[in-house]
């Protein structure tokens, strides 16, 4: 039995707060975007909820970026370019084919690297690409009065609104895939448990599969 402590308390706390804010923002955002239907939040409520959650999300993001840079967790975000292509192919092939053949997982979680290449790239893209854009466009909304009349020859508010809406659709898509992929660990719930307890355990393997070298994966 091997157990790795991969998720320190601050990280788990951040992760779950972030998740909660995400859901709140999606619910209130959808309520405003598609305002009018009965089953949605009232527009005026949704607006306040969305703004508040957005501000909290900004703070959470800043805390993440700072804490990540200052802690050991940063090493998980360092891309290993030499093996990048090969790893990507192997990982993609595994999700598309290998997983159905019960092949061993091509990636092995270690203290030094807890993400597989696909995860790493998507988390990098989300946390350092999409999130800043989402946050900036959100704040631009809040302060739309101070925006110039036009941006790139288009109405500023429109540019901001479109950016915000496209990025939020992308992040919703990410959330969907993320929630599915975490079920591809040793067991359906092992990755979820790891994010709650902090410990990545390899003994979670179902007995029937012990013949194969442990396929494992973390979110």
């Amino acid at each position, binding site marked *: 039995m091997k157990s790795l402590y991969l998720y320190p308390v601050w990280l788990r706390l951040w992760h779950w707060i972030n998740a909660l804010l995400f859901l709140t923002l999606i619910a209130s955002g959808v309520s*405003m*975007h*598609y*305002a*009018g239907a009965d089953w949605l939040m*009232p*527009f*005026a409520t949704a*607006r306040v909820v969305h703004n508040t959650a957005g501000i909290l999300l900004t703070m959470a993001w800043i805390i993440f970026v700072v804490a990540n840079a200052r802690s050991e967790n940063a090493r998980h975000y360092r891309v290993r370019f030499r093996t990048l292509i090969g790893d990507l192919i192997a990982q993609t092939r595994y*999700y598309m084919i290998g*997983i*159905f*053949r*019960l092949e061993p997982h091509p990636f092995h979680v270690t203290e030094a690297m807890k993400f597989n290449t696909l995860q790493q790239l998507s988390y990098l893209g989300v946390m350092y690409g999409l999130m800043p854009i989402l946050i900036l466009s959100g704040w631009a*909304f809040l302060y*739309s*009065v101070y925006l110039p009349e036009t941006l790139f020859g*288009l*109405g500023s*508010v*429109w540019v901001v*609104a*479109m950016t915000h*809406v*496209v990025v939020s*659709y992308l992040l*919703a*898509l990410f959330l*969907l*895939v993320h929630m*599915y992929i975490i*079920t*591809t660990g040793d067991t359906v719930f092992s990755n979820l448990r790891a994010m709650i307890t902090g410990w990545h355990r390899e003994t979670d393997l179902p007995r*029937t*599969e012990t013949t194969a070298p442990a396929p494992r994966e973390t979110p």
Partner: protein
Amino acid sequence: MITSRDRATRQGAQLHTDNPLQAPTGSPGSTKARALHLGRSLALWLCFFALGASVDQSVAAIAEPVGGAVDKELAEAAADRHACLRCHAMSTLGYRDPDDGEIVDLSIDREGLAHSVHGELACIDCHRRSYRRYPHPDRPAPGDLDCIGCHEDENQNLSRGWVDIDAEFKRSVHAVSDSPRVEGFSCHSCHDPHRFRPAAVGEPIVQIVRNHNEVCLSCHEKLIAPSSTSHGWLPNRDAHWTSVRCVDCHTPVAVFANHEVLPAEKSEKNCVSCHSADPQLLARLYQFRSEEDIARRGLLAKAVFNEAYVVGMSKSPALDRLSLAIIGLMVLLLAAHGVGRYLVRRANRRA
């Protein structure tokens, strides 16, 4: 042009003959007179350099050059206007009303008049001929000669019939209120006949909003004072006031009755009537957007100007549909993947 002049003359004539009740030519005391005879004694002769020759002579002498000057009537009207505007175009022309101490502004904005629907009429089409003399005879301005007095027949250029407008106005808060402050409220309280020009389809929406709101704000100016807490429940109040019209919220939502200004408690507070995929209220404002206008601006700008400006409204239906389709597809893919995994595992356990 000739027809419009004909009609002008006809309507002008009708004023002076057929309709003695409304015509300013009625007996001197028949109209609700402003205390002009008193006012005149206190008239503020602010800039009177223009006064020289007698007005009667100048009417003949000074004819504005009208393009080609073929149309005698048009030229005459222009000369007439010029004669009056010699004095009345001075922005400082006015006097202090002896009754309430208010300054009565008698100046006419030349530009505004030229662009107005009445820009080609002679002043005396509406005003008494005797105003050509100065000092003016003791007659009041046709204060209660409202628009309906001259306009009754339907007009294709307007979105509303005159009769409907009149009926709506008579139901509006300004007409039914017993407040002494709305006494004598008429079409002219909001529409200056020397400036009036209805919004045309295709004018920029912001411009239309500004013009229309200026009407209301000319009296309700306290609302926009920096200290004002009015409409405080409306987030980004100032943004709303530059992008929607007062009448959009202050007239009945269900029917198109832009002149039926409702009392405060009946006014529209429901955000969703604008911030939704089916914005009833904005539809009225957006009637001014012309089809060609949208077409000419091209696809990208069409998306921009169509629905983009309103939060909550689908900013771009196409984008929404695409995104939802992608998300839906992803759900299906993931579900299929999950089912596949489950089946493989079950088969494996059995084996």
